C-alpha cells in the first residue's frame, strides 16, 4: 500500500504519524464526527503502551460497529448493549489480554445499562470508552438517554420533554458512586486542548488495566454533526455551549488517587 504521507520534503521532519495500530482503511464516519478522533486516540494509547499484539477491542451496535476495520488489533462484535458482558467473558477467559469496549450512549446507557453497571460494580479489569453524542447516530437520530432537555430528535419532534422521557442520564456520576470502579472520567474532543486531555485520560484507562487496577471508563462528550444538522465547527461549538452544561468535564472517581 503506497503511502504518500511518507514522502517528506528535504529539510522537513515528519512529526505526525498514523498510529501503527490503525489500519490503512479510510474512516467511513461522517465529516466532523468525533468517533474518528476518539478512535485515533485509542490507537495512540495502544501504540504508546506497546500492547497492539494483545489488545482485543469490542465493537457493539451503533456507529461503533464499524470500528474493527480501522485497527490492526483483534476485535469482537457484540450485541447491542452487551459489550461489558462480552468484555468480561474475554478478560476472564484470558486475563493476559487487554480488553476494551467502545460504546455509544444508546448502547451503554440505555439498552446496556445493566451490563455496564454490573461490570463496573465487579471492578472488572477492562477499559470502557463511552462516546456520548446525545443521540442514536446510526439509526437516524432518535432520542438517546443523554439527549438534552428540549433537544429535537426524530422521536422527540417537539423537543425532549423531561416530564415524559426523563432527564439526560449522567451515567458516569452514577458509576462513580460504586465501590467497584478504579477510574471514571468525563472528557471531550471538541477542540485541541480537550483532545489532549482526552488522550491522557484514555492512556490512563488502559494503563490501569495493565496495572490490574480494575474497571476504567472514559466518557467522551461528542458531537454527531449529521444528526445535529450542523456543520462540524458549529457542532463543536454546540458541545461546548450546550452538552457540557449537562455533562461537566473532569475526573469523577480515581481510586486511591
Amino acid at each position, binding site marked *: 500500500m503506497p503511502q504518500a504521507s511518507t514522502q517528506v520534503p528535504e529539510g522537513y521532519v515528519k512529526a505526525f504519524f498514523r498510529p501503527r495500530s490503525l489500519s490503512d482503511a479510510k474512516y467511513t464516519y461522517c465529516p466532523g464526527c468525533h468517533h474518528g478522533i476518539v478512535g485515533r486516540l485509542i490507537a495512540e494509547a495502544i501504540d504508546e503502551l506497546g500492547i497492539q499484539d494483545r489488545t482485543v477491542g469490542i465493537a457493539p451496535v451503533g456507529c461503533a460497529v464499524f470500528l474493527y476495520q480501522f485497527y490492526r488489533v483483534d476485535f469482537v462484535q457484540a*450485541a447491542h448493549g452487551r459489550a461489558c458482558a462480552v468484555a468480561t467473558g474475554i478478560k476472564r477467559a484470558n486475563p493476559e489480554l487487554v480488553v476494551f469496549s467502545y460504546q455509544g450512549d444508546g448502547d451503554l446507557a440505555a*439498552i446496556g*445499562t445493566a451490563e455496564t453497571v454490573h461490570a463496573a460494580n465487579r471492578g472488572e479489569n477492562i477499559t470502557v470508552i463511552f462516546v456520548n453524542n446525545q443521540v442514536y447516530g446510526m*439509526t*437516524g437520530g432518535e432520542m438517546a438517554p443523554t439527549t438534552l432537555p428540549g433537544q429535537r430528535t426524530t*422521536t422527540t*419532534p417537539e423537543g425532549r420533554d423531561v416530564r415524559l422521557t426523563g432527564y439526560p442520564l449522567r451515567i458516569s456520576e452514577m458509576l462513580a458512586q460504586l465501590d467497584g470502579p478504579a477510574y471514571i472520567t468525563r472528557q471531550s474532543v471538541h477542540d485541541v486542548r480537550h483532545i489532549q486531555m482526552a488522550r491522557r485520560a484514555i492512556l490512563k484507562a488502559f494503563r490501569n488495566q495493565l496495572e490490574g487496577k480494575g474497571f476504567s471508563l472514559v466518557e467522551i462528550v461528542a458531537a454527531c454533526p449529521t444528526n445535529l444538522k450542523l456543520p462540524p465547527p458549529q457542532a463543536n461549538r454546540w458541545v461546548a455551549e450546550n452538552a457540557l452544561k449537562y455533562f461537566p468535564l473532569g475526573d469523577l472517581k480515581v481510586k486511591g488517587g
Partner: protein
Amino acid sequence: MTRMLLRGNEAIAEAAIRSGLKCYFCYPITPQGELVEYMARELPKRGGVFLQAESEVAAINMVYGAAAAGVRTMTSSSSPGISLKQEGISYLAGARLPAVIVNMMRGGPGLGNIAPAQGDYFQATKGGGHGDYHLIVLAPSTVPEAAQLVMLAFELSDRYRVPAMILADGMLGQMMEPVELPPPVDPKGIPQRPWAVTGAKGRPPNVILSFDLEPQRLKEMNLVLQETYREIERNEVRWEEMATDDAQILIVAYGTMGRIAKTVVRRARKEGIRAGLLRPITLWPFPYEPIRRLSERVPTVLTVELSAGQMWEDVRLAVEGRAKTPFYGELGGVVPTPKEILSEVKRHATG
C-alpha cells in the same frame, strides 16, 4: 376515501392509530425507523401514548403492562429487537393478553444487516419464546394490505386473547404505494376487557398470571390455550390464490416474495408455462389444507423464500409427498428478481 402515498412503515402506524391504538412502546431499529417516527409525531396528537423505551425488553414489558391494563397496545421492531422481545411475548401468550407486535425482518443471524429477509419465519410461527404457544402471524405483501392486516391483527388478538404479529420485511417497510384507509374504528366497537386490571372496585380482584406451580392446573391453563389455537385454525386461515386452476407448477411464497411471484406467474404464462401462486396471508395458522388440495393435481410445488427454507417445511408437511417440492431461496438480504425466479420456475416446470 382518498388515496395516500405512504411507506409500508407509515401505513402500518396510521392503521394502528385508526385501530384505536392507545399505547405504543418502541426501541429504534432499522428498517422500521419511519414507523417509530410516525408514531412519535402522530400518536400523542391523537390521544395516544408514545414512549421510547430503554430497550426492546423494556418495550415489550410495557406492552404487557398496557395490555393488562386493558388498552389496545403495540410494539414494533426488526429481527434483532424481536429476538429480545421473545420473553415478553411468551408472557403475553401465557397470560392471554392481546397485543400487536410488528416485525420488519432484516438479514440475520446476529446483527446481520438491514436488507429485506424472511429468516424469522420459524421464530414467528413456531413459538419463538419458551413454552407451548402460538402467535397469530399475518404476512402482508403490499402496503395497502399491511394497513388492512394491522387492523385485522388488533381485531383477532382481542377476539381470541392471543398476541398477533405482523411479519413483513424491510422492503415493504421502505416502499411506497397508494393506500386507502378506512376511518378510525369506533371505540365502542372494541371488545370489553372484563379481565383487565382496572382497580377492584365493586368486583373481585382481577389477576393477570402466566404461572401455576400446580402441574394439573398449569396443564388446564395450557389446554385453554390449545383449544383457542384449534379454534383459530378452524376459523382464521387466510390465503390468496392466483391462476391455480390449471397450474402445472405452483409457487408458494409470502410477503414481498409473494408479490414478486405474481409478476413471475404472469411472465411464465406469457411463455406458455402454466404457473400458479398460493400466497399464505396467515403464516400461523398456516394454509395446509389448500396446499394439500392443490398438491393432489399440481405435480410441482415450488417454495420461494428469503431464507434457507423455513416455510418450506410447512409446505412439505402440507404436500406430504404428493408432489415434488423444490425450493428456491436467497440469503443475507439479497432479493431475487422476477427473472431469476422465472428461470427456477422454468427449470422445475419442464425438468
